[in-house]
């Protein structure tokens, strides 16, 4: 390999590290992203043009077309999509990366003479194919689940057993192929298919608040797949980039699990379903009280401390701009308004931050869970907009609840609670929320955007 290319790869690897580091601070995040992108561009251009291979022009043309095609499509999707669709988009793009690794593995398998290739190389090729396939199908299922085209929780009978059989099958077949050096494309495609199947089975039963964890985990797996292909080509930039993403992704995944007080093991093997509490127990929780926009507006107008708890409902209703209007209006009237951000509110960690930043909410007003929790007892009114599981007191007092032990926002300590929801339907985790039956809680039913617009109009008239 030419020295110049090696140096370019070295520079690219450094930009990845610096980029990721800068992404960790609000002020430098944008430049971090740009630096990493420039490094990636350098690595791509260097790979295409700096080598001593005899390459026919037609292949350069094909590479050019492929890059142009991917750039235009990728750019258009990224620019056009609504902010609320971001989480599933990340998952989709991640799946593409996995698919790319699988395709590379398949070509390399075809190119190598398996009978004479060393077992470690064959094992490397197979791992790239399998891990790529798992991330591809898994990410597509996650994408489908988040945009609603795949039903959120699908129970497969004895799914753990089936899942384990598939993964053991993959390992057994791969070992068989590697150890005996069998050059069989049927066996290869069986392994590929099993990998795809495993990805689907792996993500399908996972639901509720665990979805972000899965996306993060799949993201990390794509990095590992990229690193494995890097080993195959002895390519440093792929190796360093892939491993960086792999380890950073795992850390992020573990951090998210910790935020929900769950272990990675229980996320993967214990599907998050509404198993606790038989149907009808909600009757015992008492009755709910509903309220009107004008009543809630009066309450907030004369409050001194208001805390807004945003959730996925805010994103779905595209209510981030009106909520900012409400917050500004109240602030101008001398009310102290803050947003309480639960780490897993929405469909991804930081989802609410991104959404509220879109409507220019000052991020100093976004207070994280540990800092805001002691403040709820001072709050006159808490306005819960489209959040459910992250304010469910069952996490504190119901050991049978599937979310028991998950840290929540202690909304029930406030003097008054106004909950905006579209209906009494359960949240993403599919469980009842006793907060709604609390004597201090008033329900404000309706689409978040419409309800908040009404609130703004009412307060303006006061």
């Amino acid at each position: 390999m030419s020295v110049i290319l090696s140096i370019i790869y070295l520079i690219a690897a450094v930009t990845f590290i610096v980029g990721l580091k800068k992404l960790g601070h609000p002020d430098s995040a944008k430049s971090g992203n740009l630096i990493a992108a420039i490094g990636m561009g350098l690595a791509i251009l260097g790979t295409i043009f700096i080598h001593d291979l005899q390459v026919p022009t037609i292949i350069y043309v094909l590479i050019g077309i492929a890059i142009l095609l991917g750039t235009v499509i990728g750019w258009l999707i990224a620019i056009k999509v609504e902010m609320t669709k971001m989480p599933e988009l990340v998952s989709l793009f991640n799946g593409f990366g996995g698919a790319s690794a699988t395709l590379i593995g398949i070509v390399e398998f075809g190119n190598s003479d398996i009978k004479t290739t060393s077992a470690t190389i064959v094992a490397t090729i197979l791992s790239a194919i399998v891990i790529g396939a798992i991330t591809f199908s898994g990410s597509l299922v996650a994408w489908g689940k988040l945009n609603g085209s795949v039903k959120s929780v699908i129970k497969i009978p004895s799914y753990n057993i089936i899942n384990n059989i598939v993964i053991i099958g993959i390992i057994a077949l791969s070992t068989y192929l590697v150890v005996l050096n069998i050059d069989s494309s049927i066996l290869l495609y069986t392994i590929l298919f099993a990998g795809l199947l495993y990805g689907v089975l792996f993500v399908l039963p996972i639901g509720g608040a665990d979805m972000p964890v899965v996306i993060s985990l799949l993201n990390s797996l794509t990095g590992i797949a990229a690193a494995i292909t890097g080993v195959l080509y002895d390519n440093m930039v792929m190796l360093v980039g892939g491993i960086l993403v792999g380890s950073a992704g795992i850390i992020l995944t573990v951090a998210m699990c910790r935020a929900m007080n769950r272990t990675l093991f229980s996320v993967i093997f214990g599907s998050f379903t509404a198993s606790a509490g038989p149907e009808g127990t909600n009757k015992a929780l008492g009755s709910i009280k509903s309220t009107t926009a004008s009543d809630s507006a009066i309450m907030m107008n004369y409050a001194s401390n208001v805390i807004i708890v945003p959730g996925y409902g805010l994103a779905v209703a595209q209510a981030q701009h009106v909520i900012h209007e409400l917050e500004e209006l109240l602030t101008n009237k001398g009310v102290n308004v803050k947003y309480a951000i639960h780490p897993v509110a929405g469909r991804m960690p930081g989802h609410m931050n991104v959404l509220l930043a879109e409507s220019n909410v000052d991020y100093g007003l976004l207070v994280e869970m540990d800092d805001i929790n002691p403040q709820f007892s001072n709050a006159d009114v808490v306005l819960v907009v489209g959040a459910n599981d992250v304010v469910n007191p069952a996490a504190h007092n119901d050991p049978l609840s599937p979310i028991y032990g998950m840290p929540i926002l202690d909304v029930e300590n406030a003097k008054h609670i106004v909950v905006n929801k579209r209906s009494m339907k359960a949240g993403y985790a599919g469980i009842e929320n006793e907060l709604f039956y609390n004597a201090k809680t008033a329900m404000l039913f309706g689409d978040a955007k419409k309800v908040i617009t009404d609130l703004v109009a009412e307060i303006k008239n006061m």
Partner: protein
Amino acid sequence: MKELIEFINNNLQIVYIIILAIFVGIEVIKSIPAVLHTPLMSGANALSGVVIVGAILVMLNSNSTDYLALGLGFTAVVLGVLNVVGGFAVTNRMLKMFKKKK
């Protein structure tokens, strides 16, 4: 087992890089505020598109009459670029919204 030891011996440099990169990844991510988790995940996702380098190598090394390899390589490049460009563009769009109020 013998194969594995041989592999490690032949690729000691790679083994070192893998281990050091793991620690760099952990250290770089460790203290990131939850506010930036989504853009970070998205940025890391764009970086995992580095697999495109391998896809380009596949195409460069393919024989121009090997249509299967070229076709698979072509698809791999398109998907890889989608991952890279889409990933960085989405991250940039998210980050554009993090600005302080004057």
